[in-house]
Protein backbone atom coordinates (compact mmCIF):
# COMPACT_ATOMS: atom_id res chain seq x y z
CA UNK A 1 0.00 0.00 0.00
CA UNK A 2 2.85 2.30 0.94
CA UNK A 3 4.60 1.47 -2.32
CA UNK A 4 1.51 2.38 -4.34
CA UNK A 5 1.29 5.69 -2.49
CA UNK A 6 4.97 6.53 -2.97
CA UNK A 7 4.72 5.53 -6.62
CA UNK A 8 1.72 7.84 -7.02
CA UNK A 9 3.63 10.65 -5.30
CA UNK A 10 6.61 10.13 -7.62
CA UNK A 11 4.38 10.29 -10.71
CA UNK A 12 2.71 13.40 -9.32
CA UNK A 13 6.08 15.02 -8.65
CA UNK A 14 7.19 14.39 -12.24
CA UNK A 15 3.89 15.45 -13.78
CA UNK A 16 3.84 18.65 -11.71
CA UNK A 17 7.50 19.51 -12.25
CA UNK A 18 6.58 23.08 -13.26
CA UNK A 19 5.16 23.58 -9.74
CA UNK A 20 8.30 22.33 -7.97
CA UNK A 21 9.50 25.38 -6.05
CA UNK A 22 13.15 24.27 -5.81
CA UNK A 23 13.37 23.54 -9.51
CA UNK A 24 11.59 26.80 -10.30
CA UNK A 25 14.06 28.76 -8.18
CA UNK A 26 17.00 27.06 -9.91
CA UNK A 27 15.65 27.70 -13.43
CA UNK A 28 14.78 31.26 -12.51
CA UNK A 29 18.36 31.91 -11.35
CA UNK A 30 19.84 30.97 -14.77
CA UNK A 31 21.29 33.92 -16.62
CA UNK A 32 19.57 32.89 -19.85
CA UNK A 33 16.12 33.06 -18.22
CA UNK A 34 16.75 36.58 -16.94
CA UNK A 35 18.18 37.66 -20.32
CA UNK A 36 15.21 36.33 -22.26
CA UNK A 37 12.83 39.17 -21.43
CA UNK A 38 9.39 39.30 -23.10
CA UNK A 39 10.73 41.82 -25.66
CA UNK A 40 13.70 39.62 -26.60
CA UNK A 41 11.54 36.53 -26.83
CA UNK A 42 9.12 38.32 -29.12
CA UNK A 43 11.98 39.60 -31.25
CA UNK A 44 13.19 36.04 -31.73
CA UNK A 45 9.67 34.94 -32.60
CA UNK A 46 9.31 37.82 -35.07
CA UNK A 47 12.47 36.84 -36.96
CA UNK A 48 11.39 33.22 -36.81
CA UNK A 49 8.02 34.21 -38.25
CA UNK A 50 9.61 35.71 -41.37
CA UNK A 51 11.56 32.51 -41.89
CA UNK A 52 8.51 30.32 -41.19
CA UNK A 53 6.47 32.40 -43.65
CA UNK A 54 9.01 31.91 -46.44
CA UNK A 55 9.42 28.20 -45.69
CA UNK A 56 5.65 27.76 -45.73
CA UNK A 57 5.38 29.50 -49.07
CA UNK A 58 8.06 27.28 -50.63
CA UNK A 59 6.36 24.23 -49.15
CA UNK A 60 3.02 25.24 -50.65
CA UNK A 61 4.68 26.05 -53.96
CA UNK A 62 5.98 22.49 -54.39
CA UNK A 63 2.71 20.63 -55.13
CA UNK A 64 1.71 23.30 -57.62
CA UNK A 65 4.66 22.74 -59.91
CA UNK A 66 2.68 20.08 -61.74
CA UNK A 67 -0.36 22.25 -62.33
CA UNK A 68 1.04 25.60 -63.28
CA UNK A 69 3.18 26.68 -66.15
CA UNK A 70 5.33 29.37 -64.57
CA UNK A 71 7.15 27.49 -61.84
CA UNK A 72 10.34 29.39 -61.43
CA UNK A 73 11.70 30.76 -58.17
CA UNK A 74 10.14 34.07 -59.22
CA UNK A 75 6.68 33.00 -58.07
CA UNK A 76 7.43 32.56 -54.34
CA UNK A 77 9.79 35.55 -54.47
CA UNK A 78 6.99 37.74 -55.81
CA UNK A 79 4.29 36.18 -53.62
CA UNK A 80 6.13 36.68 -50.33
CA UNK A 81 6.15 40.51 -50.26
CA UNK A 82 2.59 40.60 -51.56
CA UNK A 83 1.47 38.23 -48.84
CA UNK A 84 3.37 40.19 -46.22
CA UNK A 85 1.70 43.35 -47.57
CA UNK A 86 -1.72 41.73 -47.24
CA UNK A 87 -0.99 40.71 -43.66
CA UNK A 88 0.25 44.23 -42.90
CA UNK A 89 -2.95 45.68 -44.38
CA UNK A 90 -4.89 43.39 -42.09
CA UNK A 91 -2.80 44.59 -39.14
CA UNK A 92 -3.56 48.23 -40.06
CA UNK A 93 -7.26 47.34 -40.27
CA UNK A 94 -7.10 45.89 -36.75
CA UNK A 95 -5.20 48.81 -35.23
CA UNK A 96 -7.40 51.41 -36.97
CA UNK A 97 -10.58 49.41 -36.70
CA UNK A 98 -12.86 52.37 -36.01
CA UNK A 99 -11.75 54.07 -39.22
CA UNK A 100 -12.82 51.13 -41.41
CA UNK A 101 -15.94 51.51 -43.57
CA UNK A 102 -19.12 50.66 -41.66
CA UNK A 103 -19.96 47.43 -43.59
CA UNK A 104 -16.44 46.06 -42.89
CA UNK A 105 -16.69 47.10 -39.24
CA UNK A 106 -20.00 45.28 -38.91
CA UNK A 107 -18.74 42.08 -40.59
CA UNK A 108 -14.93 42.07 -40.37
CA UNK A 109 -14.56 38.29 -40.67
CA UNK A 110 -16.83 38.09 -43.68
CA UNK A 111 -14.86 40.88 -45.37
CA UNK A 112 -11.60 39.06 -44.70
CA UNK A 113 -12.87 35.80 -46.17
CA UNK A 114 -14.28 37.69 -49.17
CA UNK A 115 -10.70 38.62 -50.11
CA UNK A 116 -9.83 34.94 -50.30
CA UNK A 117 -12.91 34.02 -52.33
CA UNK A 118 -12.35 36.89 -54.76
CA UNK A 119 -8.84 35.58 -55.34
CA UNK A 120 -10.09 32.05 -55.88
CA UNK A 121 -12.72 33.33 -58.33
CA UNK A 122 -10.02 35.26 -60.21
CA UNK A 123 -7.93 32.07 -60.49
CA UNK A 124 -10.91 30.07 -61.72
CA UNK A 125 -11.65 32.67 -64.37
CA UNK A 126 -8.15 33.01 -65.76
CA UNK A 127 -6.73 30.51 -68.22
CA UNK A 128 -3.85 28.34 -67.12
CA UNK A 129 -1.61 29.94 -69.73
CA UNK A 130 -1.95 33.30 -67.99
CA UNK A 131 1.59 32.93 -66.71
CA UNK A 132 3.50 34.10 -63.70
CA UNK A 133 0.90 36.39 -62.15
CA UNK A 134 -1.62 33.52 -61.98
CA UNK A 135 0.98 31.39 -60.21
CA UNK A 136 1.64 34.22 -57.76
CA UNK A 137 -2.09 34.67 -57.16
CA UNK A 138 -2.51 30.92 -56.67
CA UNK A 139 0.36 30.84 -54.20
CA UNK A 140 -1.15 33.67 -52.19
CA UNK A 141 -4.57 32.00 -52.26
CA UNK A 142 -2.99 28.71 -51.17
CA UNK A 143 -1.30 30.45 -48.26
CA UNK A 144 -4.42 32.26 -47.10
CA UNK A 145 -6.32 29.40 -45.40
CA UNK A 146 -3.40 29.16 -42.97
CA UNK A 147 -3.58 32.89 -42.32
CA UNK A 148 -7.31 33.58 -42.46
CA UNK A 149 -8.19 32.39 -38.96
CA UNK A 150 -5.05 33.94 -37.49
CA UNK A 151 -5.79 37.28 -39.17
CA UNK A 152 -9.38 36.76 -38.00
CA UNK A 153 -8.19 36.78 -34.39
CA UNK A 154 -6.16 39.92 -35.13
CA UNK A 155 -9.27 41.66 -36.50
CA UNK A 156 -11.23 40.44 -33.50
CA UNK A 157 -8.68 42.20 -31.26
CA UNK A 158 -9.28 45.34 -33.29
CA UNK A 159 -13.04 44.96 -32.96
CA UNK A 160 -12.68 44.64 -29.18
CA UNK A 161 -10.45 47.71 -29.08
CA UNK A 162 -7.36 45.83 -27.92
CA UNK A 163 -5.21 46.09 -31.04
CA UNK A 164 -4.63 49.85 -30.85
CA UNK A 165 -1.09 50.62 -29.76
CA UNK A 166 0.27 47.18 -30.62
CA UNK A 167 3.11 46.81 -33.10
CA UNK A 168 3.27 44.61 -36.20
CA UNK A 169 5.90 42.53 -34.39
CA UNK A 170 3.32 41.76 -31.67
CA UNK A 171 1.14 40.05 -34.26
CA UNK A 172 3.35 38.52 -36.94
CA UNK A 173 4.77 35.88 -34.61
CA UNK A 174 1.42 34.11 -34.24
CA UNK A 175 0.44 34.65 -37.87
CA UNK A 176 3.46 32.68 -39.09
CA UNK A 177 4.35 30.81 -35.93
CA UNK A 178 7.65 29.01 -35.72
CA UNK A 179 5.88 26.28 -33.75
CA UNK A 180 4.04 25.40 -36.96
CA UNK A 181 0.68 23.70 -36.68
CA UNK A 182 -2.36 23.41 -38.86
CA UNK A 183 -4.74 26.10 -40.13
CA UNK A 184 -6.03 26.25 -36.55
CA UNK A 185 -4.18 28.92 -34.58
CA UNK A 186 -2.75 27.17 -31.51
CA UNK A 187 -2.72 29.84 -28.82
CA UNK A 188 -5.38 31.84 -30.70
CA UNK A 189 -4.39 35.47 -31.22
CA UNK A 190 -2.99 38.51 -29.50
CA UNK A 191 -5.80 38.88 -26.94
CA UNK A 192 -5.28 35.47 -25.43
CA UNK A 193 -1.50 35.29 -25.89
CA UNK A 194 -0.88 38.64 -24.23
CA UNK A 195 -2.99 37.56 -21.24
CA UNK A 196 -0.87 34.42 -20.82
CA UNK A 197 2.57 35.95 -21.46
CA UNK A 198 5.07 35.56 -18.61
CA UNK A 199 6.24 39.00 -17.50
CA UNK A 200 8.63 38.03 -14.69
CA UNK A 201 11.57 35.62 -14.61
CA UNK A 202 9.64 33.41 -12.20
CA UNK A 203 6.60 33.23 -14.46
CA UNK A 204 8.89 32.54 -17.43
CA UNK A 205 10.62 29.72 -15.55
CA UNK A 206 7.22 28.22 -14.74
CA UNK A 207 6.07 28.53 -18.34
CA UNK A 208 9.33 27.02 -19.66
CA UNK A 209 9.07 24.04 -17.32
CA UNK A 210 5.43 23.53 -18.30
CA UNK A 211 6.59 23.61 -21.92
CA UNK A 212 9.30 21.01 -21.29
CA UNK A 213 6.72 18.82 -19.56
CA UNK A 214 4.47 18.98 -22.64
CA UNK A 215 7.38 18.17 -24.96
CA UNK A 216 8.20 15.12 -22.83
CA UNK A 217 4.54 14.10 -22.91
CA UNK A 218 4.54 14.54 -26.66
CA UNK A 219 7.48 12.14 -26.88
CA UNK A 220 5.60 9.64 -24.71
CA UNK A 221 2.55 9.81 -26.98
CA UNK A 222 4.79 9.31 -30.02
CA UNK A 223 6.16 6.23 -28.29
CA UNK A 224 2.62 5.04 -27.58
CA UNK A 225 1.82 5.44 -31.27
CA UNK A 226 4.83 3.30 -32.10
CA UNK A 227 3.63 0.65 -29.64
CA UNK A 228 0.10 0.79 -30.97
CA UNK A 229 1.34 0.50 -34.56
CA UNK A 230 3.58 -2.46 -33.74
CA UNK A 231 1.68 -4.37 -31.07
CA UNK A 232 -1.93 -3.72 -32.08
CA UNK A 233 -1.94 -3.03 -35.80
CA UNK A 234 1.25 -5.04 -36.57
CA UNK A 235 1.87 -2.45 -39.27
CA UNK A 236 4.58 -3.67 -41.68
CA UNK A 237 6.08 -0.16 -41.88
CA UNK A 238 6.39 0.04 -38.09
CA UNK A 239 9.92 -0.65 -36.84
CA UNK A 240 8.55 -2.41 -33.74
CA UNK A 241 6.62 -4.99 -35.77
CA UNK A 242 9.77 -6.69 -37.02
CA UNK A 243 11.36 -6.37 -33.59
CA UNK A 244 8.57 -8.39 -31.93
CA UNK A 245 8.64 -10.87 -34.79
CA UNK A 246 5.22 -9.88 -36.09
CA UNK A 247 3.54 -11.05 -32.88
CA UNK A 248 1.21 -8.07 -32.72
CA UNK A 249 -2.56 -8.41 -32.45
CA UNK A 250 -2.81 -7.68 -36.17
CA UNK A 251 -6.02 -5.68 -35.88
CA UNK A 252 -6.58 -4.01 -39.26
CA UNK A 253 -7.01 -0.26 -39.56
CA UNK A 254 -10.66 0.77 -39.76
CA UNK A 255 -10.47 2.16 -43.31
CA UNK A 256 -9.11 -1.17 -44.59
CA UNK A 257 -12.05 -3.05 -43.07
CA UNK A 258 -14.55 -0.44 -44.29
CA UNK A 259 -13.08 -0.53 -47.80
CA UNK A 260 -13.34 -4.33 -47.83
CA UNK A 261 -9.56 -4.73 -48.24
CA UNK A 262 -9.49 -7.23 -45.36
CA UNK A 263 -12.11 -9.45 -43.78
CA UNK A 264 -12.53 -9.02 -40.03
CA UNK A 265 -14.73 -10.60 -37.41
CA UNK A 266 -17.42 -8.59 -35.66
CA UNK A 267 -15.29 -8.31 -32.53
CA UNK A 268 -12.15 -7.27 -34.44
CA UNK A 269 -14.15 -4.60 -36.26
CA UNK A 270 -15.39 -3.13 -32.99
CA UNK A 271 -11.86 -3.26 -31.57
CA UNK A 272 -10.55 -1.51 -34.67
CA UNK A 273 -13.25 1.14 -34.31
CA UNK A 274 -12.17 2.00 -30.74
CA UNK A 275 -8.45 1.77 -31.50
CA UNK A 276 -8.96 4.27 -34.32
CA UNK A 277 -10.24 6.77 -31.76
CA UNK A 278 -7.25 6.12 -29.50
CA UNK A 279 -4.88 6.44 -32.48
CA UNK A 280 -6.40 9.76 -33.60
CA UNK A 281 -6.33 11.08 -30.05
CA UNK A 282 -2.68 10.15 -29.58
CA UNK A 283 -1.73 11.84 -32.85
CA UNK A 284 -3.53 15.06 -32.02
CA UNK A 285 -2.16 15.03 -28.45
CA UNK A 286 1.44 14.42 -29.60
CA UNK A 287 1.32 17.23 -32.19
CA UNK A 288 -0.62 19.65 -30.01
CA UNK A 289 1.80 19.19 -27.13
CA UNK A 290 4.68 20.06 -29.46
CA UNK A 291 3.05 23.32 -30.60
CA UNK A 292 1.99 24.36 -27.12
CA UNK A 293 5.27 23.13 -25.62
CA UNK A 294 7.23 25.50 -27.88
CA UNK A 295 4.80 28.34 -27.18
CA UNK A 296 5.31 27.84 -23.44
CA UNK A 297 9.10 27.76 -23.92
CA UNK A 298 8.72 31.25 -25.35
CA UNK A 299 6.82 32.36 -22.26
CA UNK A 300 3.22 32.00 -23.37
CA UNK A 301 1.73 29.74 -20.74
CA UNK A 302 -1.42 28.93 -22.70
CA UNK A 303 -3.89 26.07 -22.34
CA UNK A 304 -3.00 22.66 -23.70
CA UNK A 305 -4.48 21.71 -27.03
CA UNK A 306 -5.48 18.26 -25.80
CA UNK A 307 -6.34 17.43 -22.21
CA UNK A 308 -7.30 13.81 -21.39
CA UNK A 309 -10.17 13.58 -23.88
CA UNK A 310 -10.44 9.81 -23.45
CA UNK A 311 -11.54 10.43 -19.87
CA UNK A 312 -14.31 12.83 -20.90
CA UNK A 313 -17.71 11.95 -19.52
CA UNK A 314 -19.85 13.82 -22.02
CA UNK A 315 -19.76 14.59 -25.74
CA UNK A 316 -19.39 18.29 -25.10
CA UNK A 317 -16.54 17.62 -22.67
CA UNK A 318 -14.73 15.44 -25.21
CA UNK A 319 -15.15 18.11 -27.89
CA UNK A 320 -13.71 20.66 -25.48
CA UNK A 321 -10.70 18.53 -24.55
CA UNK A 322 -9.83 16.80 -27.84
CA UNK A 323 -8.69 19.72 -30.00
CA UNK A 324 -9.18 22.76 -27.79
CA UNK A 325 -8.02 25.45 -30.24
CA UNK A 326 -10.16 24.11 -33.08
CA UNK A 327 -13.17 24.13 -30.77
CA UNK A 328 -12.28 27.68 -29.68
CA UNK A 329 -12.06 28.75 -33.32
CA UNK A 330 -15.50 27.35 -34.06
CA UNK A 331 -16.94 28.84 -30.88
CA UNK A 332 -15.48 32.33 -31.37
CA UNK A 333 -16.03 32.66 -35.12
CA UNK A 334 -19.33 30.81 -35.50
CA UNK A 335 -20.99 29.90 -32.20
CA UNK A 336 -20.91 33.22 -30.33
CA UNK A 337 -21.86 35.43 -33.32
CA UNK A 338 -24.87 33.19 -34.05
CA UNK A 339 -25.80 33.00 -30.39
CA UNK A 340 -25.66 36.78 -30.04
CA UNK A 341 -27.74 37.45 -33.16
CA UNK A 342 -30.24 34.64 -33.84
CA UNK A 343 -33.41 33.38 -32.13
CA UNK A 344 -32.99 35.50 -29.04
CA UNK A 345 -36.53 34.72 -27.88
CA UNK A 346 -36.18 30.95 -27.76
CA UNK A 347 -33.30 29.60 -25.69
CA UNK A 348 -33.32 26.08 -27.15
CA UNK A 349 -33.58 27.25 -30.75
CA UNK A 350 -30.89 29.81 -30.09
CA UNK A 351 -28.55 27.14 -28.78
CA UNK A 352 -29.39 24.72 -31.59
CA UNK A 353 -28.66 27.39 -34.21
CA UNK A 354 -25.37 28.31 -32.53
CA UNK A 355 -24.27 24.67 -32.22
CA UNK A 356 -25.05 23.99 -35.88
CA UNK A 357 -23.31 27.20 -36.95
CA UNK A 358 -20.16 26.01 -35.18
CA UNK A 359 -20.06 22.22 -35.42
CA UNK A 360 -21.72 21.94 -38.83
CA UNK A 361 -21.32 25.14 -40.87
CA UNK A 362 -18.02 26.24 -39.33
CA UNK A 363 -16.57 22.76 -39.31
CA UNK A 364 -17.47 22.17 -42.97
CA UNK A 365 -16.21 25.59 -44.02
CA UNK A 366 -12.92 25.06 -42.20
CA UNK A 367 -12.39 21.76 -44.00
CA UNK A 368 -13.39 23.30 -47.33
CA UNK A 369 -10.55 25.80 -46.88
CA UNK A 370 -8.27 22.99 -45.80
CA UNK A 371 -8.90 21.21 -49.11
CA UNK A 372 -7.37 24.27 -50.78
CA UNK A 373 -5.46 22.43 -53.51
CA UNK A 374 -8.60 20.75 -54.89
CA UNK A 375 -10.62 23.92 -54.36
CA UNK A 376 -8.28 26.24 -56.24
CA UNK A 377 -7.60 23.71 -58.99
CA UNK A 378 -11.39 23.26 -59.35
CA UNK A 379 -11.20 19.49 -58.83
CA UNK A 380 -14.82 19.08 -57.76
CA UNK A 381 -14.99 15.27 -57.69
CA UNK A 382 -12.00 15.05 -55.34
CA UNK A 383 -13.43 17.85 -53.23
CA UNK A 384 -16.76 16.05 -52.88
CA UNK A 385 -14.88 12.82 -52.09
CA UNK A 386 -13.20 14.56 -49.13
CA UNK A 387 -16.12 16.62 -47.92
CA UNK A 388 -19.28 14.69 -48.83
CA UNK A 389 -19.14 12.14 -45.98
CA UNK A 390 -18.00 14.88 -43.64
CA UNK A 391 -21.39 16.58 -44.06
CA UNK A 392 -22.95 13.64 -42.30
CA UNK A 393 -20.18 13.53 -39.69
CA UNK A 394 -20.70 17.20 -38.86
CA UNK A 395 -24.49 16.80 -38.69
CA UNK A 396 -24.14 13.92 -36.21
CA UNK A 397 -21.53 15.80 -34.23
CA UNK A 398 -23.78 18.86 -34.00
CA UNK A 399 -26.73 16.81 -32.77
CA UNK A 400 -24.51 15.05 -30.23
CA UNK A 401 -23.13 18.34 -28.92
CA UNK A 402 -26.58 19.92 -28.75
CA UNK A 403 -28.12 17.12 -26.70
CA UNK A 404 -25.00 16.90 -24.54
CA UNK A 405 -25.25 20.64 -23.85
CA UNK A 406 -28.90 20.36 -22.90
CA UNK A 407 -28.06 17.49 -20.55
CA UNK A 408 -25.16 19.38 -19.01
CA UNK A 409 -27.31 22.43 -18.55
CA UNK A 410 -29.78 20.39 -16.51
CA UNK A 411 -26.96 19.15 -14.28
CA UNK A 412 -25.38 22.56 -13.73
CA UNK A 413 -25.88 24.10 -10.34
CA UNK A 414 -26.37 20.75 -8.63
CA UNK A 415 -23.59 19.84 -6.24
CA UNK A 416 -22.52 16.25 -6.97
CA UNK A 417 -22.93 13.59 -4.30
CA UNK A 418 -23.49 9.86 -4.26
CA UNK A 419 -22.09 6.48 -3.36
CA UNK A 420 -18.45 6.15 -4.43
CA UNK A 421 -18.77 2.67 -5.96
CA UNK A 422 -21.84 3.48 -8.01
CA UNK A 423 -20.35 6.82 -9.02
CA UNK A 424 -17.29 5.05 -10.46
CA UNK A 425 -19.49 2.65 -12.38
CA UNK A 426 -21.62 5.49 -13.75
CA UNK A 427 -18.47 7.37 -14.68
CA UNK A 428 -17.12 4.39 -16.62
CA UNK A 429 -20.45 3.98 -18.38
CA UNK A 430 -20.43 7.63 -19.41
CA UNK A 431 -16.83 7.38 -20.69
CA UNK A 432 -17.74 4.26 -22.70
CA UNK A 433 -20.71 6.13 -24.17
CA UNK A 434 -18.48 8.99 -25.29
CA UNK A 435 -15.94 6.58 -26.85
CA UNK A 436 -18.71 4.78 -28.71
CA UNK A 437 -20.31 7.98 -30.03
CA UNK A 438 -17.05 9.41 -31.38
CA UNK A 439 -15.86 6.06 -32.72
CA UNK A 440 -19.10 5.58 -34.62
CA UNK A 441 -19.34 9.05 -36.14
CA UNK A 442 -15.69 8.68 -37.10
CA UNK A 443 -16.94 6.29 -39.80
CA UNK A 444 -17.87 9.39 -41.82
CA UNK A 445 -14.50 10.99 -41.23
CA UNK A 446 -12.07 8.24 -42.23
CA UNK A 447 -10.37 8.42 -45.61
CA UNK A 448 -12.29 5.97 -47.76
CA UNK A 449 -13.86 5.80 -51.19
CA UNK A 450 -17.12 4.69 -49.54
CA UNK A 451 -20.18 6.89 -50.05
CA UNK A 452 -22.27 8.29 -47.19
CA UNK A 453 -24.71 5.40 -47.61
CA UNK A 454 -21.91 2.84 -47.86
CA UNK A 455 -20.61 4.04 -44.51
CA UNK A 456 -24.12 3.85 -43.07
CA UNK A 457 -24.37 0.23 -44.26
CA UNK A 458 -21.05 -0.49 -42.56
CA UNK A 459 -22.42 1.03 -39.34
CA UNK A 460 -25.51 -1.20 -39.48
CA UNK A 461 -23.29 -4.23 -40.05
CA UNK A 462 -21.65 -3.47 -36.70
CA UNK A 463 -25.02 -4.06 -35.05
CA UNK A 464 -25.67 -7.25 -37.00
CA UNK A 465 -27.99 -5.78 -39.68
Amino acid at each position, binding site marked *: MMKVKSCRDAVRAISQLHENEKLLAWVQSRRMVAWLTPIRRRQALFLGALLAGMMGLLHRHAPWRDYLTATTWLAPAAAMPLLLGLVYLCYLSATHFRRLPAPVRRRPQLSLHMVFWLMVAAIWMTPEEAGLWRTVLALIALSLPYLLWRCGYMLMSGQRGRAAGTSFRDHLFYLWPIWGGTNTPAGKGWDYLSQCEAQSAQAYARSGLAGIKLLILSGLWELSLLLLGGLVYADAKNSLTALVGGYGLGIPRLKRIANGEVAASWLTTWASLYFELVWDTLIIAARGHQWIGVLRLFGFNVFRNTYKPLLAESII*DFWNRYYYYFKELLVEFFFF*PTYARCFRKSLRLRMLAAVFAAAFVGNMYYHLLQAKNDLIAGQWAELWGHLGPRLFYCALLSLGIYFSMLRQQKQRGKVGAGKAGMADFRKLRRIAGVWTFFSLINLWDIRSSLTILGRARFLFSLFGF
Partner: protein
Amino acid sequence: MAGDRPQRKADLIQFLRTIQRPDRPIEEIDEDQRLVESGLIDSLALLQIVLYLEQTYDMDFRETGVDPAALSAVGAILDLIERSKTA
Protein backbone atom coordinates in the same frame (compact mmCIF):
# COMPACT_ATOMS: atom_id res chain seq x y z
CA MET B 1 -31.97 44.78 -9.78
CA ALA B 2 -29.01 46.59 -11.26
CA GLY B 3 -27.73 48.35 -8.16
CA ASP B 4 -24.16 49.44 -7.37
CA ARG B 5 -21.06 47.29 -7.76
CA PRO B 6 -21.24 45.30 -4.45
CA GLN B 7 -24.91 44.55 -5.04
CA ARG B 8 -24.24 43.55 -8.65
CA LYS B 9 -21.39 41.36 -7.47
CA ALA B 10 -23.60 39.59 -4.93
CA ASP B 11 -26.29 39.04 -7.59
CA LEU B 12 -23.71 37.73 -10.04
CA ILE B 13 -22.20 35.26 -7.56
CA GLN B 14 -25.65 34.06 -6.66
CA PHE B 15 -26.30 33.48 -10.35
CA LEU B 16 -22.92 31.75 -10.85
CA ARG B 17 -23.89 29.24 -8.17
CA THR B 18 -26.79 28.19 -10.36
CA ILE B 19 -24.45 27.34 -13.24
CA GLN B 20 -21.47 26.01 -11.30
CA ARG B 21 -19.93 22.66 -12.22
CA PRO B 22 -21.47 19.83 -10.19
CA ASP B 23 -18.03 18.78 -8.93
CA ARG B 24 -16.78 22.32 -8.06
CA PRO B 25 -19.21 24.19 -5.81
CA ILE B 26 -18.52 27.91 -5.67
CA GLU B 27 -17.70 29.02 -2.13
CA GLU B 28 -15.63 32.19 -2.16
CA ILE B 29 -14.61 33.92 -5.33
CA ASP B 30 -12.16 36.75 -6.03
CA GLU B 31 -12.97 39.41 -8.59
CA ASP B 32 -9.87 38.43 -10.58
CA GLN B 33 -10.26 34.67 -10.35
CA ARG B 34 -10.66 33.24 -13.83
CA LEU B 35 -13.91 31.34 -13.91
CA VAL B 36 -13.29 28.79 -16.66
CA GLU B 37 -9.55 28.29 -16.12
CA SER B 38 -9.99 27.70 -12.40
CA GLY B 39 -12.66 25.11 -13.21
CA LEU B 40 -15.54 26.89 -11.46
CA ILE B 41 -17.68 26.83 -14.60
CA ASP B 42 -17.22 25.19 -18.01
CA SER B 43 -16.57 27.29 -21.09
CA LEU B 44 -20.08 26.81 -22.42
CA ALA B 45 -21.59 28.14 -19.23
CA LEU B 46 -20.44 31.48 -20.66
CA LEU B 47 -23.63 31.34 -22.70
CA GLN B 48 -25.64 31.34 -19.52
CA ILE B 49 -23.71 34.42 -18.41
CA VAL B 50 -24.55 36.14 -21.71
CA LEU B 51 -28.20 35.29 -21.19
CA TYR B 52 -28.06 36.57 -17.61
CA LEU B 53 -26.54 39.87 -18.75
CA GLU B 54 -29.11 40.26 -21.53
CA GLN B 55 -32.04 39.57 -19.24
CA THR B 56 -30.85 41.36 -16.10
CA TYR B 57 -29.04 44.36 -17.54
CA ASP B 58 -30.68 44.55 -20.96
CA MET B 59 -27.31 44.21 -22.66
CA ASP B 60 -27.16 43.60 -26.39
CA PHE B 61 -24.26 41.59 -27.83
CA ARG B 62 -25.38 41.80 -31.47
CA GLU B 63 -23.14 44.72 -32.34
CA THR B 64 -20.22 44.17 -29.99
CA GLY B 65 -20.09 40.38 -30.23
CA VAL B 66 -19.35 38.06 -27.32
CA ASP B 67 -15.85 38.57 -25.96
CA PRO B 68 -14.86 35.59 -23.76
CA ALA B 69 -12.16 37.71 -22.07
CA ALA B 70 -14.80 40.18 -20.89
CA LEU B 71 -16.65 37.30 -19.23
CA SER B 72 -13.58 35.57 -17.84
CA ALA B 73 -13.80 36.79 -14.22
CA VAL B 74 -16.32 38.37 -11.88
CA GLY B 75 -14.45 41.69 -11.99
CA ALA B 76 -14.36 41.68 -15.80
CA ILE B 77 -18.10 41.00 -15.96
CA LEU B 78 -18.82 43.83 -13.51
CA ASP B 79 -16.63 46.15 -15.62
CA LEU B 80 -18.58 45.12 -18.71
CA ILE B 81 -21.86 45.92 -16.96
CA GLU B 82 -20.51 49.33 -15.92
CA ARG B 83 -19.30 50.04 -19.47
CA SER B 84 -22.70 49.13 -20.88
CA LYS B 85 -24.36 51.54 -18.43
CA THR B 86 -22.16 54.44 -19.50
CA ALA B 87 -22.28 53.68 -23.26
